[in-house]
């Protein structure tokens, strides 16, 4: 089944300069009860975004009208904790297409890549630079160019990022891992019989 393609993106960014943002913050467990993939955006960062009476917390970046855009910029070790893919679904459903951090947890990274959400890992120094740029001018736009594997800031500075060539092809073409695995079914059957 084909997914949304990702080529390049130029938008504003929402900053979350906090380390070790775990999947329980991204989407708390009590909101994992849906049996579909949609609608999780509503509860993205629920307990940081809303007071207990469900009124929005004005000081949280996602509620601050100064910030907008499809790029979330976060501190190191983003997405640690649970394997819940709901975390990637919630971020995507919340309108984001890219998460930039200086370090990602493994399972989150896989889950993001499987859902057309691009995790972009940059150096600590460049992450600091992005935070500073957004703080200075929240309207500043960041370009994420997947073909060239580059993050480019408005002042012209840029940094290259790594992505696995297979995953890059999948994202740029909207391919899906299961289509590839299904094409191996005969080989898998052989393996299973011999195993």
């Amino acid at each position, binding site marked *: 089944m084909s997914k949304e393609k990702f080529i390049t993106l130029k938008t504003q960014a929402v900053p979350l300069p906090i380390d070790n943002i*775990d999947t329980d913050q991204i989407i708390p467990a009590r909101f994992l009860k849906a049996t579909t993939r949609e609608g999780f955006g509503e509860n993205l960062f629920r307990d940081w975004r809303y007071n207990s009476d469900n009124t929005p917390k004005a000081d949280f970046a996602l509620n601050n009208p100064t910030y907008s855009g499809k790029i979330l910029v976060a501190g190191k070790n983003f997405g640690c904790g649970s394997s819940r893919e709901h975390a990637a679904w919630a971020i995507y459903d919340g309108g984001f297409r890219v998460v930039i951090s200086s370090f990602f947890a493994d399972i989150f990274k896989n889950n993001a890549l499987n859902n057309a959400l691009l995790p972009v890992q940059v150096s600590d120094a460049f992450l600091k630079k992005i935070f500073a740029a957004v703080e200075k001018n929240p309207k500043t736009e960041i370009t994420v160019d997947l073909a060239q594997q580059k993050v480019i800031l408005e002042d012209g500075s840029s940094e290259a990022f790594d992505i696995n060539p297979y995953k890059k092809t999948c994202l740029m073409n909207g391919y899906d891992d299961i289509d590839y695995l299904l094409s191996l079914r005969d080989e898998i059957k052989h393996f299973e019989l011999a195993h």
Partner: protein
Amino acid sequence: MTRQRKTLFDKIWDAHVVKSSEGHPDAVYIDRHFIHEVTSPQAFDGLRKRNVKVFNPSRTTATADHNVPTIDQHLPIKEALSRHQVETLRKNCKDFGVELYDLGHPYQGIVHIIGPELGLTLPGMTIVCGDSHTSTHGAFGNIAFGIGTSEVEQVLATQCVLQYRPKTMLIDISGTLSKGVVAKDIILYIISKLSASGATGYFVEYAGDAIRNLSMEARMTICNMSIEMGARGGLIAPDETTFNYIKGRKFAPQGDTFDRMVEQWRQLKSDPDAEYDEVVRFDAGDIAPMITYGTNPGMGMKVTDRIPTLNELKDITEQPSFSKSLEYMGLQPGAAILGQAVDYVFIGSCTNARIEDLRLVASMVKGKKKASNVEVWVVPGSKQVEKQAREEGLDKIFEAAGFQLRQPGCSACLGMNEDKIPAGKYCISTSNRNFEGRQGPKSRTFLASPLSAAAAAITGKVTDVRELV
């Protein structure tokens, strides 16, 4: 990547690669797949949309654990969304021919507890589940790791997952453990040293005589929390302890087949001088009863230590996150934690809800009563653990102490069901995560061993177990 001197991880991985081609991740065959109600519904939906059947239903086992009540399990689930999720699992298992250990079934329980106790988890296997604590199964000398729902769909559709081979890390713990120190303290100590991201990108092998001397239950506790330092999984080479645990279990090989399998399993070890990408060694004698003070499992210390001050942090860029964490916990930098009053004690979860854990708790509380300021929940990991606890009379000990023995499920580890710690309250918990809100909105968690949790239940405050044992 082919190595000359292979680690156990490499051997098992290599034996399961169906296809390895340039530019692609490996297609890895999965021997055992566990599913539960929370991370599987969207995967079954995917199968329906693609019009694909489950590739090999006999290799998948389902149970309901994350979202189930721990009281009155014979009644319909009250909360509509939770009920719908469990009903969806029932329908999916029926439609696709997958075995389900549903609420009320004698084999129901937390997915990582029932696999081993039923003999479904065996050495040399590849095991996955849509749950990060799948690493638990690695205690039997297999490759077990958590996956996302898209990957659950891959396994259901093809019995394979596409994965890049992680790097390998050896963690060696040698020496003798001190009095009052148990498996949970070992793993909390390791994580406090390596941090919550220190093993990201790695698959860990635990070795050393301190590990070798542990029971299977204790080894499972250690492997369980591998993910809390970012590792995809952790494994321990199988030995006589492993084989004795497996022998006679419901779905384990029986009789001559078992003996033949044991001969094969004995070969499952890393080559001498196997090459690991990283090696870390600790002295068992340095480990003391541990407790966490912050909001990730790396923020742990000896129960008698002080919380670090801002200046004592290794990396000054961590100061804002550290301060935020302590503010959430209502604790001060530099303060002691010993004597801190607690409101709740939770004994349960895939980390510490096996029969040995319950016995450990019972040994500490026998003939004693809980402090009046605490509420204590004991949630067994499975129906079988619950049954055995009752047969051994542990229920009587808990009852006399004022503890509530509940029915099996994930419960207050993640507070998906009604078992939530109220806002602002402190809970000493034998579970695996102290994240903000993990046990309920604004709840505050101290992770500790079952012994330390039992001690706190009696004194009503954070206690050094060595004073009681």
